[in-house]
């Protein structure tokens, strides 16, 4: 018997509401937080999304080998990103908020228009620091 996991919106930015919430929660292979979740839980005990990987944009990863490679990279770097993969024109970076045992219990997600993503990424370190400060309050 294996388990899977799901994402749930815990705190949405009131100034920049989420666009593709349904797609995000339903197709984790296409979002930064979703890929982070798949990577974090990605050992042999956790099933991959069932069925074909749905193509939401022309940039969505639909090849499972390519997705596996990216998940391995995410595990290595401790962060996940997507550019134009969930929604054309937008990009996101997701960082894990870790439980005391090291497992990601939450994901902090920075999203912006794709053309501003380089500038958004410059806040990654500050965001990572925030995840360490958030952890004791969340878990």
């Amino acid at each position, binding site marked *: *018997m*294996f*388990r*899977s*996991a*799901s*994402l*749930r*919106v*815990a*705190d*949405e*930015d009131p*100034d*920049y*509401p*989420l666009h593709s919430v349904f797609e995000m929660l339903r197709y984790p292979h296409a979002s930064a*937080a979703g890929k982070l*979740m798949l990577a*974090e*839980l990605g050992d042999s005990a956790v*099933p991959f999304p*069932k069925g074909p990987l749905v193509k939401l944009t022309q940039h969505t990863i639909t090849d499972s080998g390519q997705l596996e490679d990216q998940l391995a990279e995410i595990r290595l770097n401790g962060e996940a990103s997507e550019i134009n993969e969930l929604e054309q024109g937008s990009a996101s970076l*997701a960082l894990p*908020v870790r439980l005391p045992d090291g497992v*990601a*219990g*939450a*994901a*902090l*997600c*920075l*999203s*912006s228009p794709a053309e*501003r993503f380089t*500038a*958004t990424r410059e*806040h990654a370190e*500050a*965001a990572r620091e*925030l995840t360490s*400060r*958030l952890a004791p*309050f*969340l878990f």
Partner: protein
Amino acid sequence: MTYRPTHSGPSTTSNPLRILEIVARFGTGTTAKEVTDALQMPQATAYRILNSLVADEYLARTSDLRGFALGQAISGLITAATPPTVPTAARALIEEFRGGNRFAVHLFHVSERFPQSRR
């Protein structure tokens, strides 16, 4: 809330749910006999459903093997039915980080879901 022979009702899933409700109500250690008595369900039917609920982790056997308790899979259902809560202090930290930045900052919970059906 009593046993419904599955051939007479529109739903075939209602009996397992009734059993879960009984175990939730009676608490950890509910026995098969208590279930059959409460639902006036044939023993063989109750055992069959109890075993399948245990296999799917909706129920767990208590350590003395005499009774049943709600299983891990139920916690996944509860999680899915309850909106995530974020403590005020955490919200304040996120809000402070958002301040003035030209990008969105969202927090997602990663929650374990109930077991997938075995095929």
